[in-house]
């Protein structure tokens, strides 16, 4: 059954869209990530124009993050104060990202920007995650060794403007979280992702937040950053396709349900290694497109009817 998307102005099979939403929901249920990093490339692959793919991807992440954060609020694993500080930085970063995105869209380089940021960030995060989880997996096979202890010394203990973050048990400067928030907001705008895959490691390793509050707080901040991004894209470029978003969300909801079930049956190290492989595969696929000579050198950007 075909569905005509009013903003993307392409007709796509509704089951393909539900499948994409479902696969992404499955992964977000399994790994606890938003899945935005998969949605944008998959939408590009089925012929949705890049601006629409990025903007609608952000809209879909809003839905999955709202769903996720509610579970964390119940378990009291959201540091609202930290979330608010990250968010303040995030709005600034997102605004900057939107501005750059719009400028490059006019110059015809937006595909390049999206592709390069995917290769760079997914490649780096995927490689780090793969290495780290491989080491953890090997360690778990040798039960004699004691697990390594991470020292809880985040950056921002020596900087001014200190603030107490009770839920995280931290007393640090607001500057590092502001900067991290801004960086994630920027990426959200240009990649159509929530940025959880960057925010989560940054909160653990850079800020030294306890792992139990990290996912909830990251989801909390992602809701608002992606909401702001969606709104900005809708206003500056009219590139949010509501019908596309609704079908993706519908598929995602069903997928997340199944994914959570699978995730509970796998070990944490196995899960992380799978996620790392997936992230690297997406980065590799996009990277190949940049390096290999394309079949068609020309591309067409339709102008708006007067």
């Amino acid at each position: 059954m075909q569905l005509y998307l009013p903003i993307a102005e392409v007709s796509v099979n509704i089951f393909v869209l539900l499948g994409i939403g479902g696969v992404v929901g499955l992964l977000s249920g399994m790994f606890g990530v938003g899945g935005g990093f998969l949605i944008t490339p998959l939408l590009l692959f089925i012929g949705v124009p890049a601006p629409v793919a990025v903007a609608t991807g952000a809209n879909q992440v809003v839905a999955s993050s709202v769903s996720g954060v509610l579970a964390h609020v119940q378990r009291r694993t959201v540091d609202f104060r930290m979330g608010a500080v990250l968010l303040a930085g995030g709005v600034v970063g997102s605004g900057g990202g939107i501005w750059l995105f719009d400028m490059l869209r006019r110059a015809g380089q937006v595909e390049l920007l999206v592709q390069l940021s995917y290769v760079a960030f997914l490649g780096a995060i995927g490689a780090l995650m793969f290495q780290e989880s491989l080491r953890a997996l090997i360690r778990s096979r040798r039960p004699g060794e004691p697990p390594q202890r991470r020292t809880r010394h985040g950056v921002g203990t020596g900087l001014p403007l200190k603030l107490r973050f009770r839920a995280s048990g931290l007393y640090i400067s607001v500057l590092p979280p502001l900067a991290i928030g801004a960086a994630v907001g920027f990426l959200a705008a240009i990649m159509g992702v929530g940025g959880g895959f960057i925010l989560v490691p940054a909160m653990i390793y850079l800020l030294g937040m306890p792992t139990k509050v990290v996912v909830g707080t990251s989801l909390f901040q992602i809701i608002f950053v992606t909401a702001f991004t969606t709104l900005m894209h809708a206003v500056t470029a009219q590139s949010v396709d509501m019908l596309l978003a609704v079908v993706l969300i519908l598929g995602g909801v069903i997928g997340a349900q199944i994914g959570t079930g699978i995730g509970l049956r796998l070990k944490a190290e196995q899960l992380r290694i799978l996620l790392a492989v997936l992230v690297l595969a997406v980065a590799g696929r996009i990277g190949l497109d940049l390096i290999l000579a394309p079949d068609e050198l020309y591309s067409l950007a339709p102008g708006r009817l007067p």
Partner: protein
Amino acid sequence: MIRALALWLALAAPAGAEAIVAGLSQNRVAITANFDGSEIIVYGAVRRDAPPPDGPMDVIVTVEGPPAPATVRRKDRRWGIWVNAAQVRIRAAPTFYAIATTGPLDEILSETENLRHRITIPQAIRAVGAAADAADFPAFTEALIRLRTADGVYGVAEGGVAFAEETLLRADVTLPANLTEGRFRVRVFLTRGGAVVDHIETGITVEKQGIERWLHRLAFRHPLAYGVLSLAIAAAAGWAASAAFRAFRGA
């Protein structure tokens, strides 16, 4: 349909020895949520006051979507990766263009007539504009035609017109799913020996309807309200999903 045509034939009184009358199976195409393309039939007949002169008569049918500007970009290798380098702005290119004929275009249509009526696809594209590198400008318009042909929005069907007894004609034109809204121009040309004997022009209105129309209008006329609505739907869906999971697990 035949009776209506006959009536029309009787009523129409065109000047000249040979004249064309034509009609369409529909003059309105609605793009709805499950729109998957449409087929229109162009039919017509040749009206003669006198016996036809020597030489075969041919028919050319064109269906042309509303023109819009477009930018064609060419990738080039820079620092080891393929990036968009040169670009050419096309001032106006039809968003859809289908040609159906009774025979090979270069045999049934002379170059002068083609220039005058802008019948073939390259003629329909007004490529005049600020060119980034005018040297290989034709390569960019060729690429535009190639890409749009691959998309199914440009097409030439030589032999796609059924022309019975050099009097009754019929052409089936397929409109693909990726259509642009607007007024589509339908032209029917009668040619003899490369010269256009008579031609007629009519139109089809293509427009989004129902939810498609509503969403598109809202997105472009009230972008802020549209953005807020998108977010409200996403937030509501997220909340509903979470509530449903809880109920599911609780049960």
